């Protein structure tokens, strides 16, 4: 099964990268960009039946730093992805 982990900085944690991207978008003339947060996408190809708890543990132990980051788990339908 394919699983995507979206890792983002927690609200309130300064995101200098997001700020720089925000500035660049404004420089390109895009108005109305209220805020930009840059995160990380990690795609895992896991054995079928890998438990939610195991995926959660992967996130907490390594993929996200719980002091500064949040994570969101998205499970993908492999057939739909291939199509």
């Amino acid at each position, binding site marked *: 099964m394919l699983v995507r982990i979206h890792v983002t900085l927690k609200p309130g944690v300064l995101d*200098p990268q997001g700020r720089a991207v925000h500035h660049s978008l404004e420089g390109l003339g895009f108005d109305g960009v209220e805020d930009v947060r840059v995160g990380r996408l990690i795609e895992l190809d896991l054995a079928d039946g890998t438990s939610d708890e195991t995926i959660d543990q992967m996130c907490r132990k*390594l993929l996200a730093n719980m002091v500064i980051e949040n994570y969101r788990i998205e499970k993908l339908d492999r057939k739909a992805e291939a199509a």
Partner: protein
Amino acid sequence: MSFRAAVITFPGSNCDRDMAVALERAAGTPPLRVWHADAALPDRLDFIALPGGFSYGDYLRSGAMAANSPVMRAVAKQAERGVPVLGVCNGFQVLTEAGLLPGALLRNAKQNFVCRDVQLKVENTQSLFTAGYDKDAAITIPVAHHDGNYFANEETLDRIEGDGRVAFRYLDATNGSQRDIAGVLNAAGNVLGMMPHPERAVDTATGGTDGAILFESAVKSLADA
């Protein structure tokens, strides 16, 4: 008495030799060198140093992979037993990622790599690492990092400040760190993480000796123990 120190090298460490030189100058004997994949540390260590560099290429997050390497389980055990552990720069990032110190190191606030001498204020002179400094002394130590922006939540910051666990503070805003924190101690006082490089300030030929006092303090604390 011989001072038995170990310097741990991860793939991508690049300040391990400087750290070894600084320790040897202070202790009179060279430290043992330990490779990250070693599951066990040498016996009877008096001091463990995690050097600067870019362990595992800083992939994922600075220090994250190194924090989960076999040797770090052994380091955590030794830290628990009270063995002094110093993490500098990437070593500091490893210690926070391993949960041995509070907080995390974010990208510098201005997105730039900062590489220069900075002035630090010595906030704590009670620890084995800092006993040789004068309280509130201004010292000069170089920094070289991209991810040195110290972050912890307000509750944690208040706690470490209240417990006197801020070892060093930047005198100028160097990287956006919360409350200008440059170095933090654990609750027991035997683990210190700092972004500035004391091992690069142990010789007048290369810009001062303010860093040497830290290593001399550690050696003296063992001799006095």
